[in-house]
């Protein structure tokens, strides 16, 4: 009798608690890559209970090279994913109707790293040099950059490592400022040995990680989508305020996934990516959108386009 009473009490408490487990909506988020500081904001939001606060039971899945986030969204294995603008546009072109909920990384981290001893000091020196680049939509900014500067390097496919560059199999390689560039430094290469080109300084400042979901997901529950974006941005705000704690949280994820990286690298990544994030104004400007579309079209990467208003939700748009 007493036991039954207690159970009843428990049920009531669940029913009337505004943040009760029953009221939480379960959603999943799939990062583009292995756990790393690039996703610190999402890990922190989950760890500090920001998603719960917004009524979501958000699971941050373990990403990696074998887990294509677009496929995850398409198949419904995840509802949200961070994607580069070019990736999202490319996916839309291939028939996956993605919608931008917030533009987190507003500035480009892409760069080209070249060996000085291969006589590369300025952009023009890249002509006819072997340059390794990532494929498809990740090469958009680089190709635009080469075209604008009228250089024609020999492109070599680049995948997950910069070992080809380190072993001097190529004269230059693509790199994320927060990741590969530092990996090169951590392989014992001194910055003085390198010539670097930051694409954001070369008028190819394409936005990177935005929070995306399928149009259908958004239509079904716009409130949840908004909540997810808000909680994620709160996560990023917290990261900026408590970088050391954020780094601890990232390292826990890193260890759990057995990612072969180190704290020094994650610290660099966190500090660098924070420099390109504007969590206070997570919007995708109409002009940037238009320019990126134009750039991709010229490179034959896009056939169809959607209006700006269709591509981003109202909160992610800048002043119309």
């Amino acid at each position, binding site marked *: 009798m007493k036991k039954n009473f207690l159970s009843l009490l428990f049920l009531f408490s669940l029913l009337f608690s505004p943040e009760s487990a029953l009221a939480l909506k379960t959603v999943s988020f799939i990062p583009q890559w292995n756990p790393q500081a690039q996703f610190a904001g999402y890990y922190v939001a989950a760890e500090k209970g920001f998603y719960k606060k917004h009524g979501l039971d958000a699971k941050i899945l373990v990403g990696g090279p074998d887990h294509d986030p677009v496929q995850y969204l398409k198949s419904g294995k995840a509802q949200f994913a961070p994607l580069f603008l070019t990736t999202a546009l490319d996916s839309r072109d291939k028939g996956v109707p993605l919608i931008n909920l917030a533009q987190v990384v507003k500035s480009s981290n892409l760069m080209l790293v070249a060996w000085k001893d291969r006589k590369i000091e300025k952009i023009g020196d890249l002509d006819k040099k072997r340059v390794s680049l990532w494929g498809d939509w990740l090469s958009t900014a680089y190709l635009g950059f080469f075209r604008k500067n009228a250089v024609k390097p020999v492109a070599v*496919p680049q995948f997950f490592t910069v*070992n080809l560059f*380190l072993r001097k199999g190529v004269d230059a390689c693509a790199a994320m400022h927060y990741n590969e560039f530092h990996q090169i430094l951590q*392989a014992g290469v001194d910055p003085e040995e390198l010539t670097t080109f930051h694409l954001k300084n070369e008028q190819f400042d394409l936005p990177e990680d935005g929070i995306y979901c399928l149009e259908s997901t958004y239509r079904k529950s716009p409130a949840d989508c908004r909540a997810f974006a808000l909680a994620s941005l709160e996560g990023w705000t917290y990261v900026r305020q408590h970088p050391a704690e954020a780094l601890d949280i990232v390292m826990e994820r890193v260890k759990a996934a057995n990612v072969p990286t180190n704290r020094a690298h994650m610290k660099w990544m966190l500090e660098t990516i924070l420099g390109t994030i504007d969590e206070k104004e997570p919007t995708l400007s109409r002009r940037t959108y238009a320019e990126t579309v134009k750039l991709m079209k010229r490179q034959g990467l896009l056939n169809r386009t959607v209006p700006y208003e269709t591509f981003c939700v109202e909160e992610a748009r800048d002043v119309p």
Partner: protein
Amino acid sequence: MFRKMGIAWRMALLVLFGAGIIMGSIVGYSYFHARGMLEEEIQQKALYLAQATANRIETVENAVEKMASGLAMSLEYYPASSKIDFYRLLEHMVRENPEISGSAVAFASKKAGTLLPAPYVYRVDGSFARKDLGAGGYRYDIWDWYTLPKELKKPIWSEPYFDEGGGNMLMVTYSVPLFDSKGLFEGVVTCDVSLEWLTGFLRTLPIGKTGYATLTSRNGTYIAHPRREFIMRESVFSLAEERGNPALRRLGQRTQRGETGIVPFESLITGKPGWLAFAPIPSTGWSLGVIFPRAEAMAKVMSFTRDELLLGLVGFTLLLLVVLAIARSITQPLRQLDKAVRSLDMTVEVGGKSKPKQLLATGNLEIPEIRGEDEVARLSASFARMRRDLKEYIEKLQAATVARERIESDLRVAETIQRSLIPKDFPKREDFEIRGLLDPAREVGGDFYDFFLADPEHLCLAIGDVSGKGVPTALFMAVTRTFLKAFFREDKNPAASLSRLNDELEAENDSNMFVTLFCAVIDLKTGECRYANGGHNPPVLLRGGSSEFLPKVRGALVGCMKGIAFDEGRLMLKKGDRLFLYTDGVTEAMDKGDVPYGETGMLEALAGLENADCAELLKGVRASIKGFVKEAEQSDDITMLAFRFFP
């Protein structure tokens, strides 16, 4: 502190101090020398060990390289279309070569975007498994083991990686590119090598308990490290970055350049100093590091030095005992002497003053006899001599003291007699006033004065000075006074009385003493004053403002010669006349320069006391004398008697 110590201890400590410095220098030198030699030896050993281990790893890798290259070479002679059972071929190779944990052949497809089958054979729990790497849409052509040899056009060792398929083992792959006759890339042959054996192998290296070996890849990443969490995560450069240690980064770059060397190095585990010897493994571009902790390497020297110090300490203790024994045997007589002399020092408190114990006096001071002729013996002899002298001196001193005490008691008796003889009560009368003063010297002289009424109308005055000092003088004075009194009672004639006195005193005077004496009889009714003088200073008559000596009358020293006659002087005293009687103590009072006060000084003093009564008169003269002699010691009694008629 040191100064308070005994000689024996001081000597012992000084010897130990000297010996300690010498021993410390020797131990220190041998420590540093041994350390230097050992350091050199350890560095050599570390370097050899690093090189030998690197060679050992290299040997395994070379064997793998040969196998893969051999397979690749033979495959290049077959057209790609040949029907070869690659699985059988690969399995055969893997089985025959225990170093190889897996092997694959991957051909490049001529059609873009497509992949040809890539047969792969690998060990699983002692047997062999087969797998097509290209099956299931898996893109093997994006991994380093495929792209690096393709792009570099030469065989490569991949960076080590964790093989997720095969039990999460640390693996490294050797890939050899295949080229056709035209030099076009055809594919790769790979051999996987598990690095699990390395960890075990490195642990067997003879590098002590806290020493360890590390293996770093071409990129500086740790392949082997006693801290497992470093493996594949940290590199020399990430640690250098995290610890803000640019030297570590430079060291990493040296290892990347394939250098061999030895450097001082702080252990990344314990943080303790040591050495790092490093040698390259040229085939893979790896570097082997051997860390020798300094403390452990130096433990032998340390324990040797500790033993040495311990022995030294025991030696020191023995030395201390020996030195103490010797020093004490040397200082033993000194201590005896000290003890003996110290007993001299013992004092007893008597009435707030400390007086030496009567040790010397009783002759109890025993100076120990010390044989030999060294300094201590001589000192002892000197002490004995000193003791003898002291004893003699003390004896003499005692005798002198007894004599002095006798004299002093004699003087005291004399003083008592003198004081008891002179009248101290001065009558208060209408017809005369009289006042006397006797101020004895330290050694009492023979001064006295006297006055009495022979009958109610006749006052006798006398003042005298007996020769000599002490009791005989006092007694002589007493006799003189007694006689004088008796004679005056019978006959009020001063000259006759003096004459009788002279005869009486002379008769019994064996010691040839004598007395100067002035006496007078005053008729209180008439004022007639008759006087006689036996060799005494003439008294002064003070009348009005004048003062003059009484006219002289014949008379000799009393008590010297029998039958002497004394003349009688007469004068009539008027009302208010004063007589001043005195002894030579007044006129012969000397100041420090031996200048006498004299009659002049006395008369001047008297002149200044015109209207003084008797008491004032005496006081005034006494003060005048004092003012004259100042601090000079009084050598004779000062005696004065003043008389005033009808004051």
